């Protein structure tokens, strides 16, 4: 745009000079026609071919050639020639940096040489006052336009840079959110490992303690209540279990169907704490008892529940199915499910292995010995708080 204007302006100035000087030839007409047609042609090419570099360079060289011719037409009048020469050099610098200066100068010299060869060289740098004034105004307008173009460009650049920065912030925030979502699935210690190594090594924990809970009559309750109401209650109960386990330092492992499972002693530093798991179990029992009292007040039948606590070795790791999950395996994990079947409703049952570790603060009553596998037997105890606050 600005280049087209500068070429047309230079031609206009030369035309004005030639009319003043009264020397008009066939060559002049040719150059004028070329000069009038070519900017439109180059503009057309640029818009259609998305401004390939080659076309840009060629048109820049043509600009310089025409500028040379114009200088010759005006018999090298000092101010107009200087203006045209400056613009012929400034344009390539603005577009391509300094790499094309040499070629532009060459093209300009060619523009001078070609008419000189046919018409001879008329060197009269004095020039007319009017033409000098016109040249000055032309130069002034050109630089205003040039400055404006620079301004528009810088603005656009700043804006895009700002937008880029904002995009970056949004991406960062989104990433944090998705990280938080993923890490919500995993226990904290495991999540930290996942954060640093992007993988979780399965581990065997010799001294873990596992808590299992079953709500055997849940399905019947689901039939009575509407789906929304049923899920509201289920969410409330399981979230409460999460909160209680969290406060006592237990890791909630998973809730599936009417089962809930939590464990402690899985972290790298933490040691299985039998007291914590028994306290959590008793608090869960109290929570469910109160929940049942609230149900009774609303003429709903109580939810029966079984709670079992066990200690032993487990293997813990991440199971990478389509639904990523952290789970426990191993003897203790299997046994606790088995024990759950023998637990009386509404009581907390602990195994001998767990009771051995924690003697104070709780009262244990022997329940029965349950056979597990071929030749193992596990003794079960009912746990109650011994005194004071459970």
């Amino acid at each position, binding site marked *: 745009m600005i280049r087209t204007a500068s070429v047309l302006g230079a031609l206009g100035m030369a035309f004005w000079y030639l009319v003043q000087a009264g020397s008009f030839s066939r060559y002049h007409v040719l150059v004028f026609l070329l000069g009038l047609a070519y900017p439109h042609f180059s503009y057309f090419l640029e818009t259609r071919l998305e401004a390939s570099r080659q076309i840009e360079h060629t048109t820049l060289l043509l600009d310089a050639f025409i500028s040379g011719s114009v200088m010759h037409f005006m018999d090298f009048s000092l101010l107009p020639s200087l203006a045209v020469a400056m613009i012929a050099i400034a344009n390539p610098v603005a577009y391509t940096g300094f790499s094309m200066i040499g070629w532009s100068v060459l093209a300009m010299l060619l523009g001078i040489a070609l008419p000189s060869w046919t018409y001879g060289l008329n060197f009269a740098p004095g020039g007319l006052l009017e033409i000098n004034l016109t040249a000055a105004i032309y130069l002034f307008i050109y630089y205003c336009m040039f400055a404006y173009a620079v301004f528009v460009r810088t603005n656009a650049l700043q804006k895009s840079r700002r937008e880029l920065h904002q995009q970056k912030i949004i991406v*960062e925030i989104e990433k944090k959110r998705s990280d938080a979502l993923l890490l919500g699935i995993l226990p904290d210690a495991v999540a930290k490992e996942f954060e640093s190594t992007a993988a979780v090594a399965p581990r065997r924990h010799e001294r873990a303690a596992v808590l299992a809970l079953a709500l055997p009559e849940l399905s019947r309750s689901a039939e009575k209540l509407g789906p929304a109401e049923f899920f*509201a209650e289920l969410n409330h109960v399981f979230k409460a279990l999460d909160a209680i386990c*969290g406060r006592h330092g237990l890791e909630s492992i998973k809730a599936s169907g009417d089962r809930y499972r939590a464990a402690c002693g899985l972290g790298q530093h933490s040691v299985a704490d039998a007291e914590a798991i028994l306290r959590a179990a008793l608090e869960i029992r109290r929570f469910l008892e109160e929940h049942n009292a*609230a149900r009774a*007040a609303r003429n709903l039948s109580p939810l029966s529940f079984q709670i079992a606590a066990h200690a032993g070795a487990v293997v813990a790791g991440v199971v990478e199915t389509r639904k990523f999950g952290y789970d426990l395996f191993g003897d203790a994990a299997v046994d606790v499910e088995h024990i759950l079947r023998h637990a009386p409703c509404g009581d907390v049952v602990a195994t001998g292995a767990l009771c051995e570790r924690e003697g104070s603060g709780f009262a244990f009553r022997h329940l029965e010995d349950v056979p597990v596998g071929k030749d193992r037997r596990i003794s079960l105890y009912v746990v109650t708080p011994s005194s004071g606050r459970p």
Partner: protein
Amino acid sequence: MSRGATDCREHTHADLLTAALSRLFGQLEAHALADLVSRIELQELARGERLYLQGEPGTNMHILLTGRLQVRVKTEDGTERVVAHLQPGEAVGEMALLTGARRAATIVATRDCTLGALTRQDFDNIVSRHPDVFSHIARFVIGRLTNTQARAAVRSLARTIAIVPLHATIDRDAFCRRLQLALLRFGSNIRLDSTIMRHRFPAGFAGGEADRFLDECEHTHDFVLLEASDRPTDWTRKCLGFADRILLVASGTAPPQLTALERDLLAHVDREGYVLPELAILHPAGVQPAGTRDWLSGRSLARHYHVPMGGSEGFNRLARFLADRAVALVLAGGGARGFSHLGVIRALREHGIPIDAVGGTSFGAIAATGPARCIEIEHMIEELSHAFINERPLDDYTVPVVSVIRGDRLDRLLAHYLDMDIEDLPIPYFAVSSNLSANRVEVHDRGSLWRAVRASISLPAILPPVLRDGNLLIDGGVLNNLPVDVMRERIHGRIIAVDLSVEHEYRLAQQALPTGFEYLKGRLLPWKEPIEAPTLARVIMKTTTLASRREVEIARRSADLYMNVPLAEYDLLDWAKFHAIVDRGYQYACRTLSEHTAANPAIVHREDAFDLLAAARLTL
């Protein structure tokens, strides 16, 4: 009541008394203890009755056996403030035994109480017979005087919270469930509503039966939630009378006028002996609070909360406040060094430490608006960097009659970004300024946010002071640069204080101050070393924070986690080094927090930021 029942009650009271005495005064000799118990007289106090009046001479001490007492203190400006609740087993008025001093607080019964009273005469008699009793009680009194914080911590444990819905449109059940779940993270809780209570006590709850059941619940649970209804029923009255805290729950979409229930039951809070209620305004997901001013006018409230119904953070925050486990952030002033607050806030967020209340002085007050508006810290950084680097609000010099900087540009900028009321902010906020006219610290926690910030950052002589009700307000750093004490008065919980004071002294290399010409030469001539001169701005900034050094020292000791970002090489006026200063704050806070985490491997749960802060206090 039959004779047997009375005996039984007195018997239990004697037991309670013995247990309380040995807990308060340590191991007394058996016969001294028996003598003491026999001298103590039982005294009944009905709800709403006053035990002490602040300022009256004291002649005896009391031990609370059943019920609840409320401690109120009248402050200098004439307003009365509830400072504590006393639970059974606690003693009051013990100073009267030793010195006969005037009562330091007004004490009112918020439930029917039974107290044990010991007069000064009886005490003197006992001391003459068992001199070691005196040393036990003196130890107890001195312990109390020197360790008021610890005392507050013991007191705030068991909590009975009445939940009073103000509008019928509120889903009471859902609200209580969500609050109950959030509270479960801090302790066991039980929720009692009229249906459950009527099921349990079909004859009504007027008799002592229901009271005993509620007492029992308080004993076995950390929190008891009493769910009242939106009509003035017997049960609602019972809830209000029994509660340690009353939480009014309002729907943000309803009109803010007083409801019929409030007019009926809560109009005379003092006379009835109820505690001052708190107000939780529920907002539908995605709706910003607005017009809170109308909610607060006409109600006397201890505090208000905005609870967004979307997401769980609103309920978790409410639970932290109710459990007295809120985490507050206090930010110091310090000019451009204050940018490091942004880095600290970012580090806190990344470590999962919630921010439930913020306050600050001067530049700290600006940085605190980020968490207060609950905007992402990255946006806050962007906003401030744009405001201070691109807009240059402080390049606005004028003829220095009132101040060097005209302040118009700064006003426009603050009004653009912070055009809201402090009451409408999602979390509690305050800014501190110094009142030149009345010569005291001014705390802004109501009204226009940008005006409060503007008052707080009005560096004397640099920025024009702010006029409010004829008072001249200038930079808060003059009187209190790290307002931990102001925060302590407002919230019960953990306080993180971020300071910006540079430890080393401000020294210059040369022997004499450079003349103006020498200074100019150093600045203009490229081959001259620029002379460091104590410029006007620098001297004023230094002077401003110098006066409150002592306060800062006290604040530093009372904060749970004190951070002092090392910023010695940055100047108070280095606005252009924005990103470097933010980053310094971030690095420092990350290092400090992970040091504390590493020192306490037991804290594996990221949610348990509270415990981390507790541990930080221990290692400080």
